[in-house]
């Protein structure tokens, strides 16, 4: 039926089941179309599927509650899949459990560190990327007031927060940052209200790390832009200008979950899967700005790249905690 090509990779290249390398991933409640890291991860696998037609088989399972992480992971493991991804910080404990219960199986996790001999853990240095967009904001604000909208006050988001703050301060010490944690990753109306209040207070650039809640930030910005106000949003995880357009998206703090998933999965296919911790920062191109940044003047980009080098060669140590 329609929609099955994303719904269900299982239908692609049927028949030679056995010869295939099977790679599955388990999403959290968001599902593979959360416009965020789940989607990004799934895109990674789909790309792999495309590149290695006939060699691999990919599929995902969406969890409807935290309680389902383990059964879903187990579902792949039990079905003898070669690699099973757990996507998201919250899945750490569960991947660990399943890994210990099935020592022969191979698993991988995004955003959390699981030390088990059969698990590859991929984490990102969000703070490094956030630092760079902080620099952009710091240099480009006209009001010296910058907003940060966070989903929840949890470790991952704290890294965005800390990096961003450091970046702004580094580029523009007298800029003021207004923080708003909405308490949810799925409440655009809260994001909208937060943005509205911030813009009312003279903020002109908002960086959001709030998943779908951030959509509300973009919508408020769009409304203001249409009303002739000069406001910007800095997107997160993916290049959100693709969704929300260049007229309000200043830039985005990309977190290349897709590349990470692709890389590790590819290694598995090539028989080079190595368990352990993989940390992806600026150096590894795991985080950073999009290639194209039409809204950022050259001089600013210049500065950004300077900072980027400094971070890469360790001159600057970006804090990862608030």
């Amino acid at each position, binding site marked *: *039926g*329609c*929609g*099955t*090509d*994303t*719904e269900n990779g299982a239908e692609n290249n049927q028949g030679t089941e056995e010869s295939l390398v099977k790679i599955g991933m388990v999403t959290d409640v*968001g*599902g*593979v*179309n*959360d*416009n965020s890291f789940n989607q990004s991860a799934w895109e990674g696998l789909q790309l792999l599927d495309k590149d290695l037609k006939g060699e691999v088989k990919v599929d995902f399972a969406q969890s409807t509650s935290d309680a389902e992480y383990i059964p879903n992971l187990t579902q792949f493991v039990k079905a003898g899949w070669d690699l099973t991804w757990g996507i998201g910080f919250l899945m750490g404990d569960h991947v660990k459990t399943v890994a210990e219960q099935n020592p022969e199986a191979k698993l991988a996790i995004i955003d959390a560190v699981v030390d088990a001999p059969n698990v590859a853990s991929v984490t990102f240095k969000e703070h490094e990327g956030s630092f760079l967009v902080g620099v952009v904001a710091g240099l480009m604000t006209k009001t010296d007031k910058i907003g940060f909208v966070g989903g929840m*006050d949890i470790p991952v988001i704290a890294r965005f927060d800390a990096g961003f703050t450091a970046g702004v301060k580094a580029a523009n010490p007298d800029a003021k940052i*207004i*923080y*708003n*944690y*909405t*308490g949810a990753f*799925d*409440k*655009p*109306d*809260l994001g*909208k*209200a*937060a943005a*509205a*209040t*911030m813009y*009312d*207070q*003279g903020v002109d650039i908002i960086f959001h790390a709030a998943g*779908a809640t951030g*959509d*509300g930030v*973009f*919508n408020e910005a*769009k*409304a203001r832009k*249409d*009303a002739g106000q000069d406001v910007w949003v800095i997107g997160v995880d993916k290049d959100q200008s693709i*969704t*929300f357009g260049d007229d309000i998206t200043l830039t985005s703090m990309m977190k290349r979950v897709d590349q990470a998933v692709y890389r590790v999965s590819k290694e598995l296919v090539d028989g080079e899967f190595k368990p352990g911790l993989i940390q992806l920062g600026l150096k590894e191109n795991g985080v950073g700005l999009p290639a194209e940044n039409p809204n950022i003047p050259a001089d600013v980009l210049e500065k950004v790249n300077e900072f980027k080098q400094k971070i890469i060669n360790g001159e600057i140590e970006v804090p990862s905690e608030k």
Partner: protein
Amino acid sequence: MSWLGILSDLMHNTIVFSTALILAALGGLFSERSGIVNIALEGLMIVGAFTSAVVTHFVDQSLGGSPWSPWIGFLVAIVAGLLFSLIHAVATVSFNSDHVVSGVALNFLALGATVYLTKIIFNGAGQTKTLQTVFTKWEIPYLSDIPYIGKAFFTAYPTSYLAIILVFVSYYVLWKTPFGLRLRSVGEHPKASDTMGINVYKMKYIGVMLSGVFAAMGGASIALTTTSNFSHTTISGQGFIALAVLIFGKWNPFGILGAGLFFGIAQALNSLMQVFELTKYVPVDFIFMLPYVLTILVLAGLIGKAIPPKAIGKPYVKGSR
């Protein structure tokens, strides 16, 4: 920034929040005044939000971006809500089903069906495409130029104006017209209405269908002003808050207006408090609790009892006692 300025901004944001709640609660009003409990408001809002998002998207594409497309989406959403509410009407009015059970069923159905359809329509995507054209705020000529007041009350989304107008219309209809008198009588004492030659079933059907219309408007207003798309998170609990607003407002349009605004303020307050860094003194989680705690306090403190329509929730079977 001046206090007046802050207040006017607060009001301005409050209205955005309140709009959907007021609309949906008005829907609940018509259905419950006719004696049909309606906890399906959530589901009806979902249907409204979904339909408006999908229709607006495709219309907008075919029109190549026209300010009219959200309106078309809005209207179709109303129709969808009306049709969906029919299920509740048939179950409760024609088959004497328990109103709550039917309502719960509809809430599940709405969420399941809309997300399912979204996936089918948008190739498995969990949310509709982001809308390019949505409602924009209207500035009422002259009025919107009044300092502070102008921004607070006369710069708002068309749906907000609509909501306020509908509050008055609802009052007029329910308390000033024969239709209203009959609708309320059916909710209070259907048998009496019957002996007065009023078609009880028809009245209840109309009541429920109106709830579909209004709740759908509520849902659509969120999709077309706040989220610019539809996903399983677009409506998450607003329907139940609207139910609370209905009861809080004592089954009365102006009560609903008040309760709706109250909620809006409480919500808008919590982002304002963060901007002013009260989080230094009050843990953010407590700020999140604010709207809900306030509601309980207000209800317990001032409002006290709200008396629902007498015959609410009771199936009416012609010729029984």
